[in-house]
């Protein structure tokens, strides 16, 4: 065994530059794959977390008739006594927070410009609103009894030229199907790091939103965050009730769950393409080496080396190439992923829909699982690819091999 590797090592040393370049190709392939995997993983996790945290939560309880596309605040679509319902749900052990939210459609205007927004009435104290509270870039968050205050997102403030303390005009579609209008003072400006979300939503205290839109004592949903999102089905089963519908994050994010599942298949295809290319480089290197060493193969065969021993000799070379290339590549890939997991890759507003929110900055995330998976796959593919030149060498007839080089 050791002798194969000793011979393999020396054979690789014959053409140092070629060996170096093959190793480099494998290293680059591995590093690239590792980075892509870390990027995808970071992207998918960020997308899932951002969407759940900002948009859908883990569970939503709504009126059975509620239509999310209409944003109607007509009473027949809403939940009555929402704070009481939320309090009951929050009493469940698996629930981190449950808070009523009232969604209405509206138009913000300041100076000459106006923008369509979603008006969200929230209970300011709820921890479910931490992403907005913690994301304040200026001013303060709402208080429950504030009757004239509003909190808006940074991209909206910027596009309308608004600062904390400025006034804006807000138009709302009321529960009677009319339009009402009122001036509000900007109390705070927040940024969640997701421009596509921040530019389209404004916050009012729930009580004010209810009175403003005519949906007194009603809410569009109870927004629920769980301690563990995998418990969603269990909790959903526990809070079924007459006239309500309970939706889990999987149901609310069908597209995202689908994209997430697809991303793995997509990643596998990218892996196979890149590994296919690098394996070709390795095969090419070994093939050249087989052709150059035809006579040596003949000699070894003449002195009694068997086919499988010749295969072993070439596989030993492939193993050494693979080990050095993949090790080197893994280190580079790991270093890149570690760096960008701290710094992130800035993409800005990708203009994604609300169904799939993405942070403006994507942080790579390399899990040990996917790293090991990749290393093992790269190694196996390299070795399998090397079987071709190795078998070719082993099948040479000794006479022809000896003649081949005379």
């Amino acid at each position, binding site marked *: 065994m050791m*002798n194969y590797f000793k*011979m393999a090592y*020396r*054979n690789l*040393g*014959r053409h140092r530059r070629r060996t170096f370049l093959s190793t480099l190709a494998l290293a680059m392939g591995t590093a690239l794959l590792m980075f892509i995997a870390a990027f995808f993983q970071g992207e998918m996790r960020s997308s899932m977390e951002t969407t759940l945290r900002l948009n859908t939560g883990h569970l939503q309880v709504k009126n059975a008739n509620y239509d999310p596309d209409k944003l109607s605040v007509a009473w027949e679509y809403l939940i009555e006594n929402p704070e009481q319902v939320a309090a009951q749900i929050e009493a469940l052990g698996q629930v981190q927070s449950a808070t009523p939210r009232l969604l209405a459609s509206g138009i913000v205007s300041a100076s000459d410009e106006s923008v369509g927004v979603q008006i969200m009435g929230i209970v300011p104290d709820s921890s479910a609103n931490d992403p907005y509270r913690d994301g304040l870039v200026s001013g303060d968050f709402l208080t429950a009894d504030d009757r004239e205050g509003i909190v808006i997102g940074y991209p909206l403030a910027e596009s309308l030229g608004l600062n904390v303390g400025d006034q804006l005009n807000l138009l709302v579609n009321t529960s009677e199907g009319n339009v009402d209008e009122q001036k509000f003072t900007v109390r705070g400006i927040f940024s969640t790091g997701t421009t596509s979300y921040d530019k389209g939503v404004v916050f009012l205290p729930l009580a004010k939103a209810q009175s403003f839109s005519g949906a007194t004592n009603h809410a569009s949903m109870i927004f629920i965050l769980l301690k563990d999102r995998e418990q969603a089905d269990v909790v959903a089963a526990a809070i079924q009730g007459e006239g309500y519908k309970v939706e889990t994050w999987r149901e609310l994010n069908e597209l995202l769950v689908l994209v997430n599942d697809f991303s793995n298949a997509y990643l596998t295809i990218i892996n196979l393409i890149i590994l296919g290319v690098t394996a070709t480089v390795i095969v090419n290197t070994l093939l050249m080496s087989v052709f150059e060493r035809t*006579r*040596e193969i003949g*000699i*070894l*065969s*003449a*002195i*009694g*080396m*068997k*086919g499988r*021993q010749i295969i072993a000799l070439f596989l030993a070379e492939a193993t050494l190439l693979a080990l050095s290339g993949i090790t080197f590549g893994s280190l580079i890939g790991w270093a890149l992923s570690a760096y960008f997991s701290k710094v992130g890759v800035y993409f800005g507003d990708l203009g994604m829909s609300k169904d799939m929110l993405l942070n403006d900055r994507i942080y790579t995330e390399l899990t040990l699982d996917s790293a090991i998976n990749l290393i093992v796959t790269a190694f196996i593919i390299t070795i399998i690819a090397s079987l071709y030149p190795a078998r070719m060498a082993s099948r040479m*007839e*000794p*006479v022809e091999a*000896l003649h081949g*080089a*005379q």
Partner: protein
Amino acid sequence: MEVAKLTDVTRVYKIGELETRALNGVSITINDGEFTSLVGPSGSGKTTLLQLIGCLDQPTSGKVIINGKETTNLNRNQRADLRKEAIGFVFQFFALIPTLTAYENVEMPLLLNGKSPAERKQRVMELLAAVDVANRAHHRPDQLSGGQQQRIAVARALATNPKLILADEPTANLDTENGKQVMDLMQKLNKETGVTFVFATHDPRVISYANRVVTLQDGLITNDSKA
């Protein structure tokens, strides 16, 4: 005792439509301890005969018996085993593995035969001393002269104590002095150990060492004389 016995052996090479009859019904017996020279012009079939005796190639028809074993029906691996155990080769070009040292080249057949490290070391040093290159044991072929390389090839051929050593034009790439040294060495080994040598050659000085000269022409044995 018969080391090799070929009966009515024919070897036809086909290249496309063209058939070349390299050997045409040759029968020959090589006995234990002989020092046989195969002579004849280029294309007379010397090398083909040597390759058939060495189980590097198989006849188109006829029987080849090596060490009492019929080889015609052996598969690749069985032929490799037979070569490993019973036959040593010395080629015209200095057929050493360039990445291995003199020591390792001689050690290779012993490794393939599964000898222990201690046995290998003893045998390799003994052989390198016998061919007078012990002081070059840890040099690679490119650091050795042609004569030294060919002597190491002889040592390698002897490593497993084969019954038979086949040499194809062993002195063709050597100068007179080195050629003489290699032939002296082979003759000495033949006399001391009784190992059988068969070599193909053009070189009259080489032929003079032989105690049996087999002449080939157009794939046939035209003369077989013992000294």
